[in-house]
């Protein structure tokens, strides 16, 4: 396929023009920010590449209102730096997909983060990007500029279209301006660690901890095979699995919660506590699927009920497979050899049997073309999604192929 022609809109009007021009010429658009998530899901088949990074800049930021409005192509790093200057942060802790594909960290745009509903370990306590996306302006596949939601934290006026945009991977509309909710930055953080647990026992420990009143803001389990690259030396060298429980907040609160959690966890195994610096390093590593940065295996991201994550991993009987768990066990990062169908069949079947689903976030192009990237859905839901797609993008010009459905017997 030929290299898509690059279009670099400077404002929303340019986006409208681009979409109408491409529609007239029966072409298709690859919609992207900085491209840090290009490798996720299916391979886009497009005549043009719509690069939104010139649509950048913060439009309004009122820290005391807990909202920020910015153009969609604004770099996430710029947003996070600005928020940090006011002691605020994004509660959903968006991961950085870049390093998984060997790219430099810190390239993601805010629009891309929202289009992919990107979140991180704090998902279990504070929600995903979808839970903080308040309003937007966008251009639909119809070439029409429209808006939805609002610029305040509490709003039920009209349908919640920000939710529809979040996780639609640019297949319904091109976001041009977005408003998100922000929260105060956690003043201190610590992590209570349990060493040596097997996967099912770790799931039980994380369930107990997140079900306690200790207010856990991150619960992850890394089997011994994936701990060597943890950027905290004493964890990397221990040679045992690590079950990590994060506490965040004001100093006196974190101190008290460490003690109650330590007591609760000691019945599961030997307990240690990581300080603020080690906590930040560890959770950035967990957030960005650090154990699998820079290797060339296929990588799956599987979402199930927290107590079922380990079962998916157990179903994949491949000696070269590795995995770890975030979201108290409900998010499985699973790396498998990139050949064949990259275990697509067994992984989809396992996730689906457990009421969850799997997405292929990294694989060589032939594998992505062969197995698709997104999970197959029940016929009724798939038909509904198709009708939504045809209402917002009737000519199918936005990111065709991006949300390609896995072709496997269900």
């Amino acid at each position: 396929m030929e290299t898509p022609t690059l279009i670099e809109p400077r404002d929303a009007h340019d986006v409208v023009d681009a979409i109408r021009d491409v529609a007239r010429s029966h072409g298709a658009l690859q919609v992207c920010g900085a491209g840090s998530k290009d490798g996720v899901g299916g391979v886009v088949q497009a005549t043009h590449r719509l690069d939104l990074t010139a649509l950048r800049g913060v439009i309004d930021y009122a820290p005391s209102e807990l909202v920020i409005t910015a153009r969609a192509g604004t770099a996430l790093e710029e947003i996070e730096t600005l928020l940090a200057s006011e002691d605020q942060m994004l509660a959903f802790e968006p991961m950085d997909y870049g390093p998984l594909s060997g790219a430099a960290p810190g390239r993601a745009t805010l629009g891309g983060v929202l289009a992919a509903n990107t979140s991180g370990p704090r998902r279990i306590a504070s929600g995903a990007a979808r839970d903080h996306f308040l309003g937007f302006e966008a251009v639909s596949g119809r070439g029409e500029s429209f808006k939805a939601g609002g610029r305040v934290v509490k709003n039920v006026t009209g349908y919640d279209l920000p939710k529809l945009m979040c996780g639609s991977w640019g297949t319904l509309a091109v976001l041009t301006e977005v408003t998100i909710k922000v929260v105060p930055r956690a003043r201190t953080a610590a992590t209570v660690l349990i060493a040596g647990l097997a996967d099912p026992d770790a799931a039980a420990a994380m369930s107990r901890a997140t079900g306690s009143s200790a207010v856990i803001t991150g619960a992850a389990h890394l089997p011994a095979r994936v701990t060597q690259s943890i950027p905290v030396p004493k964890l990397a060298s221990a040679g045992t699995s690590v079950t990590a429980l994060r506490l965040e907040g004001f100093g006196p609160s974190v101190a008290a919660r460490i003690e109650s959690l330590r007591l609760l966890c000691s019945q599961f195994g030997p307990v240690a506590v990581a300080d603020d610096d080690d906590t930040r390093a560890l959770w950035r590593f967990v957030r960005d699927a650090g154990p699998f940065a820079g290797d060339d295996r296929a990588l799956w991201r599987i979402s199930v009920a927290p107590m079922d994550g380990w079962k998916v991993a157990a179903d994949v009987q491949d000696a070269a497979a590795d995995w770890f768990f975030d979201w108290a066990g409900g998010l499985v990062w699973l790396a498998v050899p990139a050949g064949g169908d990259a275990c697509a069949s067994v992984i989809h079947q396992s996730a689906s049997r457990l009421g969850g689903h799997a997405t292929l976030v990294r694989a060589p192009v032939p594998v992505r073309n062969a197995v698709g990237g997104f999970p197959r859905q029940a016929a009724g839901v798939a038909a509904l999604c198709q009708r939504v797609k045809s209402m917002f993008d009737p000519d199918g010009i936005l990111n065709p192929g991006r949300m390609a459905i896995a072709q496997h017997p269900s």
Partner: protein
Amino acid sequence: MSLRMPEPDRATLARRAQIIAALSAIVPGEGVIAEPDALRAYESDGLTAYRQMPLVVVLPETTDQVARILRWCCANSVKIVPRGSGTSLSGGALPLEDAVLLGMSRFNRVLEVDYANRVAVVQPGVTNLAVTEAVRERGFYYAPDPSSQIACSIGGNVAENSGGVHCLKYGLTTNNVLGVELVLMSGEVVRLGGKGLDSAGYDLLGVVVGSEGMLGVVTEVTVRILPEPATARALLIGFSSVEDAGRCVGAVIAAGIIPAGMEMMDKLAIHAAEAFVGAGYPLDVEVLLIVELDGPQAECEHLIEAVSAIARRCNAATLSASQNEEQRLAFWAGRKAAFPAVGRISPDYYCMDGTIPRRALPEVLARLRELSASYHLRVANVFHAGDGNLHPLILYDANKPGELEQAEAFGADILRLCVKVGGVLTGEHGVGVEKRDLMPEMFNPVDLAHQESLKCAFDPGLLLNPGKVFPTLHRCAELGRMHVHAGRTPFPDLERF
């Protein structure tokens, strides 16, 4: 009523007996209500100014019955209005003369509590409070707590994306629902989401929540349950000026504190509440702020001190911290009774629900006083100060000719003001019929056409809860032409938020 609803379909009215027979074949026994006296119980919801007798009421008990009802109605072009407990304050469950009212009250069972995964699976007719009651013995609760929680149903909460006083910290319904079983107007049953945190493909669950019963009928809901905070304490702070109170709220947020609840009442609301429940509120202050802090005991203690210091810096006239649970509940008693308390000092009141950027509060309250004077109607203000959701209560007397219309006009002016200062028409009560005709204040025709597109994907025949949310609901084919028309028309000056 000063509200225009869609013209009833005469052919449907003429087929009433046939429709009743068809419904009775699906839901036997007491499940079909057709007698005028019995129907009267359903003629309005919490927005009692608007009333309409339904064509017939049907009370199914199973998902299969719901599916068969919808399939039959779809095939026969009969409209459906879904209803939970009927506590909507925006007329979301207002019946139509030519529509079947689908009551979900018999879906009243808690199906499963899964503590290990911290979720509960419930039927939509279960009340909000009953979810918490079902999990309390193990120290859990369901976070969203609308003030009608003793009566309102989870299905209704999903339809309206209900909030509550704790939603700044713990989120609205949409942030606490993980999955639903949904019956489409075609009768097809789909499941969206589940016990896992992320949904696959488009976030259809996210748009179903808050869709005001227009996209499908929810027959099962999976909600997140949370461990109860170890402790909760409240501060009761009086201020002599709105400006000081507003500064205090801003300073609390700026200090990195997200209280579990932060509620403000103005003088009229304070006096009405105190006269009603005797909560011990100070009567010589202009504004009262209730700040609730929860979490581990150490955190509570720390934050009580921190917020008290901020309040003193912001010229608090009175300040007290709850010393025990009894006192904390007493602080809340007046706030929680504020609506009925206002109901005691006026024959009728009309509750508004706009959200504003908090920084605009002094300006908005000043303008409200001017409007109050020009309409000759009193207004009491209750404010979710943490998230900017303002509930002005307009006091009127429906028995005085023209006063309801005056109250409605006053309310519309308030909502226009909310939009003008950067806010929105409704923070938690929904658009319903009440704010339907004000939607163009916030959204232009192209914005609305995109929202209606979603409706068409779910219910192309527009049979589910028509007449709500959209000032004009275009036929789906017509909507396509509108898009084409809009596509050719340049919009150089599109409205901004």
